[in-house]
């Protein structure tokens, strides 16, 4: 495992989990990513990423106890961002901002 860095997909998923807040479960997260980012991801990828994030301690999960028929009577596993997840996101954003800030103006005008 590459330390505690957030990968690109991981960051995306983490952001979506935060966005969905109380309704962040596997399929919803995937649909959200497809809709908002216009990216096709599979359910397996989403779960796999969530699992990895959980291993790193950035999200935590619990079953909601619902038994919706549309889910074959199975509960949802709801994810929420932990505080270390939050700070990882913030760190990422800050780092990115910093990098943006220090780009010389001419750098993009070369072409």
């Amino acid at each position, binding site marked *: 495992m590459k330390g505690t860095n957030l990968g690109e997909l991981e960051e995306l998923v983490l952001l979506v989990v935060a966005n969905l807040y109380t309704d962040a479960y596997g399929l919803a997260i995937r649909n959200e990513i497809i809709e908002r980012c216009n990216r096709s991801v*599979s359910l397996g990828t989403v779960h*796999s990423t969530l699992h990895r994030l959980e291993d790193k301690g950035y999200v935590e999960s619990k079953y909601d106890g619902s038994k919706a028929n549309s889910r074959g009577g199975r509960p949802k596993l709801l994810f929420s961002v932990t505080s270390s997840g939050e700070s990882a996101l913030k760190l990422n954003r800050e780092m990115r901002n910093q990098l943006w800030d220090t780009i010389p103006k001419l750098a993009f005008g070369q072409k």
Partner: protein
Amino acid sequence: MSLLERLLEPRLYDAIMGDLLEDFYETLKDKGLRAAKRHFVWSALGIVRHYRLRKTRNRQRSNFNAMFKNYLKTSFRSFYRRKAYFLLNILGLSIGLASFIAIQKYVEFERSYDRFHEGAESIHRILKYDNGNQSYSVSNHPDIGLKLKTDVPGIEAVTRFYNRDNGILQYTKDGDMDLYKDFTLFYADKDFFSVFSFPFIKGSGINPLEKPNNIVLTESMASRIFGDEDPVGKTVQFKDPNFPLLPCVVVGVTKDVPKNSHFQFDALLSLNTPVRDGTSLEKMGWEAYNTYVKLNGALPEEQLERVAREHFVDNSNHMLRSQAITDIHLNSGALFGITENGDKRLTNYLALTALFILLMAYFNYINFSTAKSLERAKEVGVRKVMGSRKSDLTIQFLIETFIINFISLILAVILLIGLAPLIPITNVGFGVDTLFKFFGNERLYIVLGFLIGTVISGLYPAIILSSFKPSVVLRGKFSRSSSGKTIRGLLTSLQSTISVALVIITTVIYSQINFMIKQDKGVDITDVLVIETPDIRGENYRTQLGVYKNMLLSHPFVQSVSTSSTLPGNSLNYATPVRLPDQRIEEAIMLYTDGIDEDFIKHYDADLLAGRTFDRTFGNEFDKVLLNETSIRLLGINSPEEALQSNLLMEGDTFNVIGVIGDYNHYSLKQSVNPQIFRYYGSWVPQFSVKMTANSQASWTDQIALLENDFHEAFGDNLFNSRFLEQSFNAQYDEDRQFGNISGFFSAIAIIIAILGLLGFIAFTVSVKSKEIAIRKVLGASKGSIILNISRNALVLNLVSGLIAGGIAYYFLGDWLNQYAAQLNLSALHFLIPIIGLVTIVGLIITVQSLSLLSKNPVSAINTES
């Protein structure tokens, strides 16, 4: 779904499954069922792809693999580091395992007898029991079988057959007639194949024996006669010595009779074949039929009794009994068994020997590995410091044992295949295929047995080794372990006990066989050559016989010639009821009839106790008989002289007793003497017996060639067959001898293993005491006193084990010897020599090992810190 359930981490399963289903229903709404299904499957497979979501067990396995790899590596390192020790272990274990497998195969074969028949448990043999002399006989009247079939409910099928092993088959092809002999033919009734299972390879299996003059051949018999021709439909001629030539049509060919069948045949002839004047054998009423029944349920004992009462109207002593076919080989007491039967006790004894040999090999392993514990102690210490738990170490050592056991097993199989010719077990092969069949049949038991073996041999050393305290070991305070010393002593003594017991038993078995061979049989069969009379007999056969007898007598190396219907060692095949005139019919005694000529007594050097032998000068002698001692005793006659005044009633005629012959052993000395009655036969007998001059043995080959020339001169193109009687008589001991050989072979292996163990044990004991020896030496003790001091314990221990072994052997042997009519007297020497041998070997080993220690400088022993 089930795939997901099996693979996924259980905690995630519900969530993912729920997601998949929700997705499925949505797609269903949008795109229809087929697309939804396809989507579902793809998504599901997509999930499986992500190993992260799978069960955690999978991740643990990689951990276990690493550990296991480490164990393997350290095991092989330790093998490599101590090659000699490793080889010794492997060698001991593989010899032990090989012996175990070999004996097990033999025992398995012995126990598999007659179990190949379909529904073997429900097949029974009907025996006639004589309450008078309490003997069983397998020969029954043919009507008994018929009665059982018609009168007794619960009997599904009955078959009867009559055994004829001296017939001849003739087959004429393109005008050439070929003769075949030395095969066994059964006259069998039509239900033979309803009771027994002998699969056909050619011809019909539906009642092939129903019609008269039908013959069924076994595969090898068919190929002997017909080669590559198709035998079905061909006609052969069967010559029963008692009847004219019988033409027979081959209706079928069966597979050869399996070796583990208690009866063996090469051909079956339908029983209803007319043998003489249109009458079938069945109608002759001979009491000579093996009768077998197949039952539907339990055997109705009282029905059997009823049939017996109806049949033996005039003799209440005769009863019928039944015996399960699966009991026959190992559990038989019948008088006229069809082939030699095995012995349950001996089989069990061998099975026990096998187990003991294996245990001894395991004991050696245990002793060696605990004795060498010091070398592993540091490893254990370091491992413990690094965080190994005791259980981890136990598993590590068990795995090491497992590896050693496994290598030994492979080596054992290789040894078995390679050394098969050396193993004195002849009835089972040790080819690759039979061994694999063996492993195939009872795979589960073998795996289980192997694991149990590993645990037996590995658990104790593993526990001992893994329980060392690192603090003690690593500080270097740990000296040679005395832990397990008592156990080691105990195991070694047990080995000594077992091997001494085996040695005693084996030597006694050999002595008993030799005793029987050397024992006075009552007749002298040394240097007797048997020449069979010819098979093709012309019109002047009788004259030819006389001519040939004279030719034989004309040779100076021929002492005498006699003719008789049977010979010592050959079967007494005909018994008939005989009684005194004042006895009632049910008091009649069954006596074995034997036809002899006037020279018989002189020829065999038998004793004539009273009266005279046959003599043609008194007339034709056909109404005269001789009896043996056992017969007159059974008839209730008090003395040989008294017998001479008696007349006997037999087969409807009255006979004069003219002489009494001293008992001689017609069969091997395993059996007691049979009651015999001798009648006068002319030369119409199956063989000449020729007494050769003993002092010219070297030239026997030439002399037999001369006799063969004469034979052809007298009988033309007939086959000349000769053999020495003593050889065929002693062949009766073949089975005992084979048993002796097997027992001897494996006892030798047991001894080798035991000596290996002793060597290891003593080497260890001596090396532990090296300091003590050195100090004693420095203080001025003599070599002798030191050796005595070291060896006292071991000697006493081994003496005790020897004595225990003697006790065990005595118990077994008493039981075993009881079955022989002529018993060897057990002497103390049989027991003392092996025990003294053991103690001497132990003493020698100790002396040699301590002498090498004593010749070293004591200072170096005292200086070493160990």
